[in-house]
Structure formats: structure tokens, C-alpha cells
């Protein structure tokens, strides 16, 4: 898959810079925050019109918080969000509510994402009424059309969510988001709660809608194969930071960040014939309340040049190849000079490390 031309040089639809969302952990006297969980810690990314930017990472890496912070469902602590040329973080009250119709969200849990007390029709109609897009019979007609568009019978509008399966509920959630005709949809793990056979239906639906409506997606998932299938470009998150960002093809062909290299090798594939060379990461991801110093990944890293400097210098996200960004100064080229690394206790100079090429060979 190649990066669509629009993604190069075009103006981004969404532009996020140095976004941070910190949660206080209240334990102190009088409820004063004692510690801070840095759920999202300085994330910058762009989403271009009509493209899909995938966000992958393990649980606790901050990908869900990132999605909600961008929509300001959780108020970010710092950073800027520019949407369609508007400073989204500066909006208040009615202006903010008016802008919201352009950025929608689809959730992971098909059970908690629909109000069990409202009929499907009422749920889908809410956005239409709030933004005065349609009222009365026109609104009902819109609902019928939306249901049809997501592959459900228009007659289902009068039913309640509990009468539907997980996959169908997910379609209803998509229809609710589409109702206000957004330009961007944050898809927060939209298929991870679904069975494989249903998952494929929803993925295809999302792709079809993107084509017919020119939607941009911020597609958050933990499943690498789903993200690779959906996304044009992929950002890999670890402990609240973006560690690598590249086109899906580049990322899977030539992952540069040691963490990204380990991820696909850990995914079991339905192919017993494949010879595997697996990088099993030891230990658990650290807590975002107490992240390691320097490179947050260094305690689990398998890069041969890993040394003491990794626990001192925080690696910048730098462009290693065209449109391929990675946060690892042991992977050349790097802007962190060797002298600086040595000064921080470095003993191994950067060297190119690509252990995964072997992984993709069939035996």
C-alpha cells in the first residue's frame, strides 16, 4: 500500500502538536495530587483528508486517551489541536458544540456505547436534532437512509439496542456518527470486541464508507493485522509517546524501532508452516505513572547497541528515511551525536538493526 498523494504536501485536516494528557492520582491530604499519570505525553501527528492514520499499541499505552483528548472528551493538559484551520482547543460553549459535528467517534464496546433506554432511531436522530440538520419526517427519512447505508433494515429504527448483536450495534454506532456528516471519525478499537467473521464485515463497511464519503479516520487498535489492513499510515505508541510513524507498508516491511520489530513477531499467525524467529519481549510495560528515564522502552529493548545512554537521553522522533519517523538514537541516522551518547555513558555506537526480515520469509 502506498501513501495517498493527498497525504504528501497537502494541508492536514487535523494537526496535533505536543499533546499531553496527565491524570492526577489523588491520594494526598485534602485530595492534592501526589502523582501524575502521563497517559499521553507530547504526541504530534497529522491526519490528511480522506486518509486513515492507524494508532497501535498495547493496553495502557495511551492510545484511547489520545483519541478522546483530540475530541476533547477528555480535556488535554497541554498542546494544540488544529482542525480544518480552526484552533479546536480554543473553542468554548456553543462554538465548540457546533464544531463537534465534524469530528465523530466510534467506540469499542458495542454494549456500553448505546443508551439501552433509547430506540435505535432516537439514538441516531439525536445529532440531527441538535445540529438542526433535519427535523420531523425529514429526520426519520434520514435515519432510514443511514441505517440502509450501514447495512441494516430501516425498520430497525423503532427497536432497542438489546435486540441486536454486537456487530449490528457497532453498525448503529457508525450510523450515529455518520448522521452529522463528519469529516473525521476517531475509531477507538471498533472491531476488537467482535468475532472474526463479524469483524471483517465491519472493516469492509468502514472502508466502503471512507470511499463513498471521503472520510478521514484515526483508527486506534491493538491488533496489528487489522491496523495494517485499514491504515495508510501507522503511528506506534508506547507509554504515552509515539515511537514510530510511517506508511503501513514501510512500517511492516522495515520497522526501525526495536519495539515495533518485536510486535509483529509476537502475533500468532494462522500458518503452521511458517518458520518463526520470535523476539519475545521480557517483562511488562512499565506504569505510565512512573515511566523509565531516557528512552521509555529501554528496560525491554533488544537492540544490540543498547547501553547506559539509553536510560539518560530521551530519543527524539526523527525522520530516518523519507516519511519514516522513529524515536531511537541507536538506529542510524540520528541527530544525537555519538559524543553526546558517550557523555551519557554510551558504550555502543549506533548500528542498523533489522532482525525482522527473517520473520517474513516462508519456510
Amino acid at each position, binding site marked *: 500500500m502506498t501513501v495517498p498523494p493527498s497525504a504528501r504536501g497537502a494541508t492536514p485536516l487535523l494537526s496535533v502538536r505536543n499533546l499531553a494528557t496527565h491524570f492526577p492520582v489523588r491520594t494526598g491530604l485534602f485530595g492534592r495530587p501526589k502523582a501524575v499519570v502521563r497517559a499521553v505525553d507530547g504526541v504530534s501527528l497529522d491526519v490528511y483528508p480522506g486518509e486513515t492514520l492507524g494508532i497501535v499499541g498495547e493496553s495502557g499505552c495511551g492510545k484511547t486517551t489520545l483519541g478522546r483528548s483530540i475530541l476533547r472528551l477528555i480535556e488535554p493538559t497541554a498542546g494544540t489541536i488544529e482542525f480544518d484551520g480552526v484552533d479546536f482547543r480554543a473553542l468554548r460553549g456553543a462554538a465548540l*458544540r457546533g464544531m463537534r459535528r465534524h469530528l465523530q467517534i466510534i467506540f469499542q464496546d458495542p454494549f456500553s*456505547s448505546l443508551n439501552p433506554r433509547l430506540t435505535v432511531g432516537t439514538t441516531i436522530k*439525536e445529532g440531527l436534532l*441538535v445540529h438542526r440538520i433535519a427535523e420531523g419526517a425529514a429526520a426519520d427519512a434520514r435515519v432510514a437512509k443511514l441505517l440502509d447505508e450501514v447495512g441494516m433494515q430501516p425498520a430497525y429504527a423503532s427497536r432497542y439496542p438489546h435486540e441486536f448483536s454486537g456487530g449490528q450495534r457497532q453498525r448503529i454506532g457508525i450510523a450515529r456518527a455518520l448522521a452529522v456528516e463528519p469529516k473525521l471519525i476517531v475509531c477507538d478499537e471498533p472491531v476488537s470486541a467482535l468475532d472474526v467473521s463479524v469483524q471483517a464485515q465491519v472493516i469492509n463497511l468502514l472502508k466502503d464508507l471512507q470511499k463513498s464519503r471521503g472520510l478521514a479516520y484515526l483508527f486506534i487498535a491493538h491488533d496489528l493485522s487489522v491496523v495494517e489492513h485499514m491504515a495508510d499510515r501507522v503511528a506506534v505508541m508506547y507509554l504515552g509517546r509515539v515511537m514510530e510513524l510511517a506508511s503501513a507498508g514501510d512500517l511492516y516491511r522495515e520497522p526501525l524501532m526495536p519495539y515495533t520489530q518485536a510486535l509483529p513477531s509476537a502475533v500468532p499467525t494462522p500458518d503452521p508452516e511458517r518458520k518463526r524467529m520470535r523476539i519475545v519481549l521480557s517483562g511488562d510495560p512499565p506504569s505510565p505513572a512512573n515511566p523509565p528515564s531516557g528512552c521509555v522502552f529501554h528496560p525491554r529493548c533488544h537492540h544490540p547497541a543498547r547501553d547506559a545512554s539509553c536510560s539518560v537521553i530521551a530519543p527524539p522522533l526523527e525522520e530516518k528515511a523519507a516519511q519514516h519517523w522513529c524515536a531511537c538514537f541507536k538506529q542510524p541516522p540520528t541527530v544525537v551525536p555519538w559524543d553526546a551518547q558517550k557523555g551519557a555513558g554510551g558504550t555502543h555506537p549506533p548500528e542498523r538493526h533489522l532482525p525482522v526480515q527473517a520473520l517474513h520469509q516462508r519456510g
Partner: protein
Amino acid sequence: MADTPAVANLAIAPPATVVAETVGTTRDYWRAIWGNTGGKVAIAFLSLLILLALLASVIAAHSPSELLGPELTSRPPSWAYPFGTDVLSRDVLTRMLYGTRISLRIALLAATLSGVVGLLWGATAGYLGGAIDALLMRSVDMFLAIPRVLLVLTVVSLWPDLSPDGLVLVLGLTGWFGVSRLARAQALGIRHREFVSAAHALGVSRYRVLVRHVVPHALGPVLVATTIGVGHVLVLEAGLSFLGLGVRPPTPTWGSIIADGSESYQVTWWLTVFPGMALIGTSLAVNAIAHRLRVVIHPRQLPGR
């Protein structure tokens, strides 16, 4: 008490399609009550009671404060006076009929008042959160620390000439603290549910989210608590009257009839037993209905019942 909403655990149960999930519409609640023998009996009992109360002036053979004469003091139940007469020679059945009127009225109105105040207070606190939540709920904590009986007794002692409607106000305004905690817990519980986030993402205003999503969710548990509250107020009012501090005599209530016999339990047992039975029966019926209503909210809590 401490009603934490249970999340249906379907780990061993068959798939969700089999376990009927109730929406919590009026029909669901009605079906829960009426679709069960206990519920039917309770509804029938309460309906009969309300009917008798409404028709008290038609059915009763005497007037509630009519003295039947010295020879008819403290008579045990007989055909002429099925519930006997009291120490002042008044017909107990008549007094009970009129007492039903006043006891039920106070209980229903006061419990409803508590339900409404508690729902609004708690749902607002839970949904808005932050400093407002802290302020609203700390004040509730404070009131909860004063035993309700003492609070009511204090107020009643300070306003000695309280009308029945005044009593409704006192009982209602001292009964909503628990309800507000319940409503707040519900509001907190759904504040972070994804459909509320979806509504925010759609640009729905906070007020509209509160009214359309939060309050309806708190309604079920509040309804149950209010129903239980009817029983509590009924018993509390009877207790006040028993102490001679409730509705002023000679207006009869179930509690005051018991109080009339409190100097001679052993002899005038009917003055204790009949109003007591009426109290217990009503209280049981109300609790049975509350119990059935709970089934709608926590379908899992009552296996096999």
C-alpha cells in the same frame, strides 16, 4: 441500602440473547410487579386499602372522634365493633379507616417528595462532579449523620402545632439523603459510559445530556428507593404518633391508635394488634413491590425467585 448496580455476569450463562435485558420502561416495571403472585397480592392489598381510605366516610358506622358512652369503653372485638373500642369508647374500626386515609397520604406524599429532591440533588452532583459534587454530597453526609428520628423529633418539638401537610414536609425533607446518594452513584456510573461520551461528541449540551441520559438512568433505582421510603415514612409517622408527637389528636392515625392502648397493652391488645397488622401488611406490600421493581434493575440478584 448500599445498592451497587450489578453488572450482569454472563461468563457461565448462555449468550446474551437468552438472558432478557430489560430496558426499564414503564411497561417493564409494571410487568415485573404484575407478572408475579406476590406482586399481584401486594397491588390488590394496597388498592383495597386505598379504596377503603377513600370511602371511609361511607363505610364507617361512626365518626372517628364519636364517644360511644362510658359503658362501651375498652370493649374487645365483637360483631358490633369488629376491632373493639378504645379507652375513650371510640370505635376502633372507624378510627382505623380514617387513620388509613391520613397515614397513607402522609407516607405517599413524603416519600415522593424525598424521591424528587434526592433524584435532582444526586443526579446533578454526580453528573457535574468536581467542586459542586463535593459541596452537595458533603452536606448530605452531614444530614446523614443525624439520626432521622432525632432530626424529626427535634423539628416536631420545635414546631408543636404541625399540620399533617407540615408533617409531610418534615418527613419528606428528612428522607432524601439516601436517595440522593443512590442517584449520584447512578449518575457517576453512567457519566463515563460511552453513550454519554458519544452524546458529548455529537455536541449535545450538558443540560440535555443530564435530562435525556443521566436522569432516566437514575430513575429506576430512585423509584425502588422511593417505594421502600413509603414503608419507612409509614412506620416513622406511626412511631411519632405513638410517642404522641405526630398528627395531633383526636385525628386518628395507625400509630396514635396504638398509643391509645399503650397504657394497658395486656388488656386492650386489640389496640396494638389491629393497627400493627395494618402497618405490617402495608409495609410488606410496599416492600414486595419494591422487591419486584428491583428485579428490573438487577435481573441477576434473585436467582430462582
